[in-house]
């Protein structure tokens, strides 16, 4: 069984476990099981250490403490997806770097071009999505995306006009970047 499958099943197991903990906490809370009986006490002893921290944080954020179990499931699933994505990214990057290192200087240059393209592409997407939420260059978190992409977006903006309220310059910048990458990669492969 490949490692990724093991990781995926582990995350699935953790989500199912979180759902069971949430259910256990819920049955005691709603008095479906007496909290003072043997089963109720056992369930509280198992579920409280997991659910209580979520509940405290939820109350601090102004949420309803009875929703702690549900949020525990959601948080576990989201954290699992992020973990799987990061693990996949690490494995792919390691394989790519390894292949480039054993392929000589041309492969290394190709890797550098590809990595630069990916970083700029992600920065452009961050820039566009952040603008939808009203975060622009003066936001502390979004500023790096602007610094990375201004050199290509600003000249494109001078050429591409606004269409109503829509600014297509980041999309055009993406196309230009993709073309540039293709040209550089094909020049390297000759």
């Amino acid at each position, binding site marked *: 069984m490949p490692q990724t499958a093991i990781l995926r099943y582990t995350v699935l197991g953790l*989500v199912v476990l979180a759902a069971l903990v949430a259910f256990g906490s*819920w049955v005691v809370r709603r008095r479906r099981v007496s909290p003072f009986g043997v089963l109720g006490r056992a369930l509280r002893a198992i579920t409280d250490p997991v659910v209580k921290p979520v509940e405290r944080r939820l109350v601090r954020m102004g949420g309803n403490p*009875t*929703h702690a*179990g*549900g949020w525990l*499931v*959601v948080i576990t699933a989201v954290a699992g997806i992020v973990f799987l994505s990061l693990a996949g990214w690490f494995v792919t990057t390691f394989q790519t770097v390894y292949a480039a290192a054993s392929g000589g200087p041309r492969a290394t240059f190709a890797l550098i071009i590809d990595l630069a393209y990916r970083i700029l592409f992600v920065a452009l997407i961050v820039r566009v999505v952040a603008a939808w939420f009203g975060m622009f260059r003066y936001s502390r978190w979004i500023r790096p995306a602007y610094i990375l992409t201004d050199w290509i977006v600003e000249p494109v903006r001078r050429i591409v006009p606004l269409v109503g309220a829509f600014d297509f310059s980041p999309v055009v910048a993406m196309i230009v970047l993709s073309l540039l990458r293709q040209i550089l990669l094909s020049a390297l492969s000759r």
Partner: protein
Amino acid sequence: MRLLKALVSFIVGTVAGALGSKLFGPFGGVLGFIAGALAAWWVAQRMAFFD
């Protein structure tokens, strides 16, 4: 709370969809997702999980 119910239904639907896709292929995946999400929503509603 609709947001929480929707998120939990989405997670259950995703798990059911993965199972359905493994057993019956892509159509099984889609059907599994819809059935799982609807079942989770219905159970949450009926048992008043998030009320």
